[in-house]
Structures are given as structure tokens and as C-alpha cells.
């Protein structure tokens, strides 16, 4: 490993004054823990409903305090490598406690596109169980006292302490935001612990945290406003559609995962589930995903359909809008215009026998991933969608890595 690739960060930088955006995003009382300083105490509830404090980990020679979250694709990717490493290092005296610093109300809906779970305490329980956490996972979102005392900037953000509980390393786990271990070139945390185990100075004691910025409580009002109003200005339109065009949608020659929903204003189950589907669309607005609604109302009821869509702010995300030009489409909301449903049934495949709501998920190339008659279970649907899209950044999306220096994480 070439030392030339290493960040020249021999000491933890002072974060105040590092940039106007960063400073303005840090809450009062925030202070990044400096090398050599003692681990701050905490008293937090874990997903096992037990309370934990620092002293509960006194039996371990080394202690890793790692800030993780349910919703963050960086956390998801890092965990694929971090969890096996943690297991292997327990026999070397490593104790681990994970702290979830985010308040769920401080997360915008469109930051939830990589996880079926947000960052509430109840969802932490599900996330920890599904991902096989073998260490306490504590909720700090109510006060964020631990996050401020440690100076956690992102998820993931690691703080490694020696036997005296002095900070010997802080920062990222490694230098890849992807899940594939082949994309890692710098194993920062692993190397730091290896130095500690070998009883030698940690050669690189700080590496800039890379992940989703901590969602501070101070942003709740702004986030709440954004979650209420971000969709108000998205264009909403309805176009007529026939069976041939539905067949074309089902062929899905796009690169997007398509969720197609048949509904009507007169259909109670459809009306009941529609807000959940639009919310799902908002969560996934930055993914290769589109929600397409096809109303089965009478064609002359188009104004009624449009009013319903407007009331639910079922507009078209910019990313979807930008993708439509090449598809000779203008909208993601349609009104079925033909008298017979037989051709429509043929276009949708054998899964649809006539009742609505009917929802079908079609992958690029026309592969039917999932379909359902009746109201959807959006947790189940989210799981299916994320299985297709992945829970972390795909490697082919060569986006600029987003680190703690930016206020938003996705």
C-alpha cells in the first residue's frame, strides 16, 4: 500500500472554520474528539431495550465506538466488510458499541431511497436483527448527546480507543463507498487496530469520515417543511393511454425499475393505498425508479383524476422527467382510454384478472419482478424494490463521493 495515497491527516482537524456549510450544519455543543482524549460517557438505550453506558464495555482491551444508521448507503456498504472484521477481532480484545445518531424526523423523504427503514428506534431493532448485529446498537436520536460529545459527523464514523480509553483513531472504516471489497485501497480502521494490537503508534490516526451526514435535531423544522412542500412544484399531468402503450411500458426498454399501479378514484382500496405509493416514489426519486399510475376511471372523468393526483402531489420527479424524452412520453400518470379491458389484460400479463388496485413491478427488459392484487404492503414492496436496486451505491454510478463536507448525503 503506497503511503502517497494516504490522506495527509496526521491529526484531527479543527472542524469549526473548515467551511461555511459544515460549520452552519453543526449543532451547538458539537466538538470533535481529539486524539488522546478520553472516551465520553453515555447512557443510551439499545435495541435489546437495555441501557448501556461506557463502563459496560470495560472488560474489553480495545473499544470501537462506531456511529451507524439504518438508512445510509455508505453505512450499508461499509457494514458488509466491517461486520466480519469485527467478529474476527473480538478474539483480539475488541469491544464494539454502535450508536445511531440520527433523529428520524430530521431525514428528508428522498434520503430514504436506499433502505426500507428510516432511523427510528423501532426500525433500528429490525435493521439490527436483519443484518446480524452482534454488538449493542444504541439510539442517540432523541438528544444526540453522544454524537455531539464524540463529534460524530457521519454514518459511518468510527472512534477507536485503547485500553485506557484514549482516542487512537477516528474517521472512516476504509476508503470505498461501494460494497465490493475489491474497490477498497485504504483499510484505515483495520490498520489502526492492527497498530494498537501490535502495541505501536497508530500510523494514520485520522481519516476523513465518509458517509451520510448526521441528521441533527436542529434541522427538523427545515426538513419537515421540505417533506411537506418539496413536491408542490413538480408538474402533474395525465395522458390517455391504450393497451399498446401499456404493453410498451411493460416491455420496459428503459434503465428504470417501473412500478405500475392500476387504480381509480371510485376504488376505495386504491384511494387508501395511493399516498403510500406516492411516498414510495418520493423515497426513490434519486434512484433508477419510476412510479406509473394508470387510472381506470371513465375517460370523461379526467378532471377528477387530475384533481385527485394534484391533491396527493403525485407529480413527476425531475430524474424521471428527464428520462422521458427518449421514450416519447410526457408523463407518469395515465388514464386508460379504451372501452375493452381484454387487450389491457393481455398487455399486463396473466397476473391481472380485472380487479383493482393491481400493482406490478417491471425490471428493465420487461422482467416481472413482483405483482399484487389488492392493497400493497409497502414494507414488503420496499424490500422487493431494494433487492432489485441495491441498498448501496452501485459502482457503475460514478458519482462524486459525498462526504461530511457536504450537508446532504445523497
Amino acid at each position, binding site marked *: 500500500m503506497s503511503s502517497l495515497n494516504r490522506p495527509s491527516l496526521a491529526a484531527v482537524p479543527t472542524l469549526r472554520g473548515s467551511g461555511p456549510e459544515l460549520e452552519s450544519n453543526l449543532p451547538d455543543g458539537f466538538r470533535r474528539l481529539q486524539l488522546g482524549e478520553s472516551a465520553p460517557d453515555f447512557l443510551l438505550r439499545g435495541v435489546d431495550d437495555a441501557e448501556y453506558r461506557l463502563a459496560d464495555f470495560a472488560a474489553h482491551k480495545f473499544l470501537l465506538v462506531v456511529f451507524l444508521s439504518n438508512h445510509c448507503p455508505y453505512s450499508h456498504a461499509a457494514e458488509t466488510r466491517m461486520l466480519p472484521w469485527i467478529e474476527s477481532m473480538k478474539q483480539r480484545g475488541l469491544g464494539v458499541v454502535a450508536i445511531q445518531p440520527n433523529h428520524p424526523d430530521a431525514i428528508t423523504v428522498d434520503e430514504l431511497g436506499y433502505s426500507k427503514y428510516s432511523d427510528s428506534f423501532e426500525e433500528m431493532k429490525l435493521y439490527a436483527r436483519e443484518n446480524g448485529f452482534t454488538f449493542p446498537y444504541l439510539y442517540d436520536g432523541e438528544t444526540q448527546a453522544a454524537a455531539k460529545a464524540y463529534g460524530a459527523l457521519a454514518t459511518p464514523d468510527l472512534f477507536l480507543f485503547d485500553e485506557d480509553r484514549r482516542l487512537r483513531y477516528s474517521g472512516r472504516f476504509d476508503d470505498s463507498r461501494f460494497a465490493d471489497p475489491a474497490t477498497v485501497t485504504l483499510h484505515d480502521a483495520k490498520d489502526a487496530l492492527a497498530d494498537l494490537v501490535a502495541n505501536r503508534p497508530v500510523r494514520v490516526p485520522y481519516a476523513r469520515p465518509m458517509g451520510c451526514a448526521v441528521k441533527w435535531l436542529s434541522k427538523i423544522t427545515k426538513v419537515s417543511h421540505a417533506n411537506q412542500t418539496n413536491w408542490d412544484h413538480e408538474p402533474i399531468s395525465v395522458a390517455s393511454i391504450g393497451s399498446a402503450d401499456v404493453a410498451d411500458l411493460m416491455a420496459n426498454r428503459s434503465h428504470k425499475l417501473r412500478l405500475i399501479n392500476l387504480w*381509480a*378514484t*371510485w*376504488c*376505495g*382500496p*386504491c*384511494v*387508501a*393505498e395511493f399516498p403510500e405509493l406516492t411516498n414510495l416514489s418520493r423515497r426513490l426519486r434519486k434512484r433508477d425508479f419510476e412510479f406509473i399510475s394508470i387510472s*381506470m376511471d371513465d375517460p370523461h372523468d379526467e378532471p377528477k383524476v387530475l384533481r385527485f393526483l394534484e391533491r396527493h402531489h403525485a407529480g413527476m420527479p425531475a430524474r424521471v422527467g428527464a428520462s422521458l424524452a427518449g421514450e416519447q412520453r410526457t408523463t407518469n400518470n395515465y388514464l386508460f382510454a379504451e372501452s375493452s*379491458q381484454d387487450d389491457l389484460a393481455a398487455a399486463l400479463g396473466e397476473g391481472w*384478472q*380485472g*380487479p*383493482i*388496485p*393491481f400493482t406490478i413491478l417491471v425490471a428493465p427488459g420487461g422482467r416481472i419482478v413482483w405483482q399484487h*392484487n*389488492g*392493497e400493497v404492503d409497502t414494507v414488503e414492496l420496499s424490500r422487493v424494490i431494494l433487492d432489485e436496486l441495491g441498498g448501496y451505491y452501485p459502482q457503475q454510478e460514478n458519482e462524486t463521493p459525498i462526504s461530511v463536507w457536504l450537508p446532504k448525503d445523497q
Partner: protein
Amino acid sequence: MAAKGSIDAGGALDYAPPQHSWSNGQDNSPATTRLMCEAGTIQGGRSFWLALVLKMQPDWHCYWLNPGHTGFTPRLKWSVPESFHVGETAWPQPRRFMASGQIGFGYEHEVAWLVEITPPSLLSAGAQIRVSVGVEWLLCRDVCLRSGASHELILPVSPPVAEPCLPYRDIFERFRLSLPQSRDEVEAVFYAEGEFWVLRLHIPADTTFNLPEVYFYPCQAGWIDPVAYQSATVQGTTIEVQMLLCDTDCSAPDELKGVLVWREGNGGSDSIAARRVDTARKSIGKWRS
């Protein structure tokens, strides 16, 4: 494609499947329809009744004139020879149900729409008269299924008789019991008062109400909040029903039609009664009797 039903001269009935049969892992349609004629034969100038009966599988429901939050009003189109007169379709009293978090007005299990047909006074005995109905409806459970059917009956004409042959009288009597009563020229008004509409109408002196179970179903949708509780008070021969205004796009017509449904007695009776409110005039300010 609509299913066809027919009746032979003897009055035998034919059951027809709905237009779109649907199975959810089973080959069961959620509903069947049939067209019935109360009379075995018809005579010139003597009115007779037809019924279109929709039978639903358990858990399914269809809708009334005003479907409530969502839903779809069934559409019936009766066809008779040109010289025949078709009366107004009689809708049985609806009930409220909760489905998918929405309040609906409509029917479960079975509903029979009735219509009175009046032939011309001169009909040739031995002739056969063709009557038909086309119907579209929406059935909902955890899903909704819009379907339709058409049925046809061929009715034989018999010479005038003193007492008509009514082989299905008992069935039709049962159907008629589910129709709201109609009283002529009953004074009724409605007016806005704060967040409420108030409907006020005179009632026969012998009417007994179980007041917590009084509910007014307006024929027009989008006028009241179907979820909201309605409160009723009785003073002498006047009943007042207070209904919460709907919260959006709320407007009321100048005249109101609907059905007032109540449980008779003071809790000891299971008898449900209903009466039509054929016209209530909108009044500005509080109406005084």
C-alpha cells in the same frame, strides 16, 4: 361482452353471470344477477313490477346512489316497447360500511332494484313482450371489480283477468320491504348552521325513533362528511338531523333528496325503517315551523 338472460313464457328464470368473471385462485364470481317479473303474464293497462337482483359473495359490497367516500353508483337501463311506461327505479335503503378506511353507502349480500312498468291499455292476448335491462356495477372487497350484465325477459300477454297471476309476489313483497317509505308532500328544509347542515322535516305523530341510530343519506355525493356522526332531535312532529359539512369542495344544491333511516322504538326493536325525503328546500337562516 354482456351476458344475456331470458325468461320463457311460463316465467322460468335464467341466471346470468357477470360480464367479467373473476377468480382469485377459485373459479367463483363475486356476484350473480337475475331479472325477475312479479307477474306470470301481463295484461293491457295493468302495471307490473320487474326486479333486477344482484347477489354478492360474502365480504363484497356494491354502492348506492351516493356511494360515499369512494365507489361507483350502479347504472341500470331498462328497455321496454315504445308504448310502455317505465317508472322511476326504486333503490332499497342503503347502509353504511367501512372498507379500506373509507365510509361507503351501499349494499351487501343482496340488493334488488325495482321498477314499475305500465303497458298500454290495448295489448293483444297471446302476444309476447320483450323487456330488458342493462346494468353496470362496482363490487369491492379488498379489491374493486367493475362488472356489468344484461338480461331479457319475454313476457306473455294474457286476456284481462280480475286477479293477476303473481307467482313471485312473496319475493317482491320482501324486496319492497327494503324500500324507503314515501310520504307525499312532507315539508322539509335544510340550512347551514356553523359547520353543520341541518335537515328538518315533519314526521307522522306515531313515529318512534331510536335517536342514536338515525342517519340521513343524501342522494348527492360530496355534500356531507360520510365519516361524521349525525345527531338527531325530535320535537313533537318534527325531527332535526345535524350533519357535519364535508371539508373540501363542499356545496349543496338548492333542493335535496335523500333517505332518512332509523331504528324504530327505543332500543327494544330490531326494526329498521326508512323514508324518502323527496325534496327538501334550502333555507337561508333557521327555519321555524
